[in-house]
């Protein structure tokens, strides 16, 4: 009797013993006749033949192939159900030289992870997706998959898959192939030797696509599941050839491997010393600030239409306050309010640490339009100061015990050449009425808030014009 000889040994890419598996370390956990064993072998041989084992990061999914890392002697990352494309994205982005391969079943990729695969493919992520489609949930015991054929009975379609209840079998490769970014998408099968050899070719080509940096590649593999299908392995292979392949046609769905350009290489990281410049940390207040012994408690509410420079007015006041050595805070209104056409912000200037940046009872209200005046006038603290952008304060808004000034700030700004600096005119008036900061401190802070050079000069004029407005002839309601 001649001695039997194994001529095709285990691929180097497989571990010699499956130590992570625990017991029975010489065999896989797959059922007899399962396609995963064949697909693993094709992938392992391809990795060996391409000489990339040290570079491979393999992403194990949830499903029957959850234990991929038992077998492949490569860097391994096991992930949550359906999320392999997201994880693969970040692995590849972190290490573009690595060869990142995700391996997912139909439940994982086509159901729970349908968003992740679609978007990874659409971004053209340069990794390779191996998609095993056996049209059933194997690990959980035979439930319907998105790829289950019409009429098939599963544990969750006991009367057969019904289009009105369950929809149609999902043709993932065809869907992915409609996107612009993917470079190579092919459907292969494990129904016979010829199909298996073609599947290996496809896997290798997908990996080469990634190695060349061309972008997203995916191989869908129609695969037998004799146990759950309740078939013997030979019939199961036949079902792959005649049942699955009839619904899911084999072949390349997209192949741009010839014309695709490599994706741009990442920009080299700058030296650590460059970070302060990149983060603009060099821009800020470097003025030696005076020490304040007097009590300052400025609680300002600025409100008006969007476009009146409400937020900028507040920010400039806070910037200048910081330069002047005061404790400051600025809080804007945000979200839907921002988009309704009105805008307001809260500014605090204090000689003591600011407790809440939220100003519920301001001692200064700047109302740049009538709705803002009406909305906030009742909240102003007795003795508080009110600036209203207008010629007269509406009679029903006059509150005794407040200092109320009505000035058409934006008309004043017009005289200076631009309505846009109306907010700075207000600030000038505020500073002259309160003396909280010298005008020069605002001059110094201006370039940090107002980026365009051309505005700075007119802003400084506006500030001074505003400061001159509070003459005795301006009516004040006290």
């Amino acid at each position, binding site marked *: 009797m001649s001695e039997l000889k194994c001529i095709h040994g285990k691929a180097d890419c497989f571990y010699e013993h499956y130590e*992570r598996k625990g017991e029975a370390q010489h065999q896989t956990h797959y059922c007899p006749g399962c396609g995963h064993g064949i697909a693993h072998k094709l992938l392992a041989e391809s990795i060996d033949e391409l000489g990339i084992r*040290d*570079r491979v*990061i393999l992403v194990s999914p949830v499903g029957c192939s*959850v*234990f991929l890392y038992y077998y492949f002697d490569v*860097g*391994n*990352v*096991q*992930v*949550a159900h359906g*999320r392999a494309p*997201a*994880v*693969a*994205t*970040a*692995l590849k*982005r*972190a*290490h573009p*030289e*690595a*060869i*990142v391969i995700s391996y997912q079943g139909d439940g994982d990729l086509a159901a729970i992870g349908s*968003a*992740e695969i679609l*978007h990874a493919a659409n971004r053209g992520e340069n990794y390779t997706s191996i998609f095993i489609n056996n049209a059933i949930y194997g690990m959980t015991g035979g439930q319907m998959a998105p790829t289950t054929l019409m009429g098939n009975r599963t544990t969750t379609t006991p009367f057969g898959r019904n289009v009105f209840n369950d929809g149609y079998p999902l043709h993932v490769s065809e869907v992915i192939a409609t996107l612009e970014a993917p470079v190579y998408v092919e459907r292969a099968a494990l129904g016979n030797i010829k199909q298996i050899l073609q599947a290996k070719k496809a896997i290798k080509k997908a990996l080469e696509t990634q190695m060349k940096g061309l972008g997203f590649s995916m191989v869908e593999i129609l695969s037998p599941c004799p146990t759950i299908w309740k078939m013997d392995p030979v019939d199961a292979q036949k079902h792959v050839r005649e049942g699955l392949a009839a619904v899911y046609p084999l072949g390349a769905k997209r192949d741009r491997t010839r014309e695709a350009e490599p994706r741009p290489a*990442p*920009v080299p*990281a*700058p030296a*650590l010393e460059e*970070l*302060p410049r*990149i*983060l603009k*940390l*060099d821009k*800020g*207040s*470097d003025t030696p600030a005076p020490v304040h012994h007097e009590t300052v408690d400025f609680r300002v509410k600025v409100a008006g239409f969007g476009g009146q420079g409400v937020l900028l007015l507040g*920010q400039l006041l*806070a*910037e200048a306050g*910081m330069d002047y050595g005061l404790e*400051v*805070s*600025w*809080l804007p209104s*945000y*979200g*839907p309010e921002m988009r309704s056409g009105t805008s307001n912000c809260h500014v605090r200037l204090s000689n003591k*640490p600011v*407790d*809440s*940046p*939220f100003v*519920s009872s301001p001692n200064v209200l700047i109302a740049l339009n009538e709705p803002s005046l009406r909305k906030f006038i009742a909240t102003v603290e007795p003795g508080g100061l009110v600036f209203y952008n207008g010629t007269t304060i509406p009679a029903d808004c006059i509150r005794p015990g407040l200092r109320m000034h009505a000035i058409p700030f934006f008309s004043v700004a017009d005289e200076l050449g631009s309505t846009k600096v109306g907010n700075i005119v207000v600030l000038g008036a505020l500073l002259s009425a309160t003396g909280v900061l010298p005008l020069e401190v605002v001059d110094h802070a201006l370039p940090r808030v107002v980026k365009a050079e051309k505005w700075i000069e007119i802003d400084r004029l506006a500030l001074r014009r505003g400061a001159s407005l509070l003459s005795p002839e301006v009516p004040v309601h006290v």
Partner: protein
Amino acid sequence: MPKQLIKGNEALVKGAVLAGCRAFYGYPITPANEIAESAAVYLPQAGGVFLQAESEVAAINMVYGGASAGVRTMTASSGPGMSLMCEGISYIAGAELPCVIANIMRGGPGLGNIAPEQSDYFQAVKGGGHGCYHALVLAPASAQEMCDLTFLGFDLADKYRNPVIVLADGCLGQMMEPVEFPTTPRAPRTPDWAVDGTAATRPNLISSIYLQPDDLEKHVLKLDAKYKRAHIEETRWENYRTDDAELVFVGYGIVARILKSVVEKLRVQGIRAGLLRPITLYPFPTLELRRLAGQAHQFFVVEMSTGQMVEDVRLAVEGRRSVEFYGRCGGNIPTAEEIVEEVFAHV
């Protein structure tokens, strides 16, 4: 380095980049948007990755991938987005991966609103996702701390190989305050357990699967031992005038600042008040509260929620002292004056 008047959300990103963060994966949500927007500006320039994911579910799994690859990685979100991320955070904790997650809390439940609340305390501190795990939770109270605690967060995440949550609120995220940035940036380096596609790391495996009950129990106990160690080594808090305090307020984040004013107002009226501000919400300053329970007669917890942290305060004082609670929610920020009124009404 000069002081900058800067939004809390932006200060957080600068702190992250200075801490060596080189990957940000996120999804837009108010009031956390400036974090993703600043990350989109700074990370690519710093040699890092910024990617807007298709969902929070994808974003947190990208964080999982970035962390697996050994890169200091972060994301940021707010209530509804955090709920979607809880699955991924559980996996990150289970696989012992480091990362920083900022939650700029808004009003809930459901869509709620975008105004500040502190109602995600339970979610952040007690778990959120499935299984026996904890994130370390840091609670900044200023724009300066948005930067500093994020910077610290990356070091703690690496030290414990565990997710760190920076738990702030819409107010802290949106407000501008002066910030001084750290002057010694951290250089990115790949830890030896990472999987980076090289021969040296080929034997490495990132996984949270332990099939055998004894194996999983061993793993969970290992995680638990980390959390116990963190309680000893990382618990942080601030005492404000507690030395002689009979009435001790407990509050975190923006509320703690308001409580300092409350303490001052009450002191003027002859009431010996003080404040304990937890800086780490997990690990919680239980022992410090227990110590204060030996001295103070009364505790008063203020939160922007219907009462979440108050449960931890009650556990800490073990029924030895009464613990009063005052909360505002829906996006309302309590004022010092209304808290003082509550004190006189209930204490």
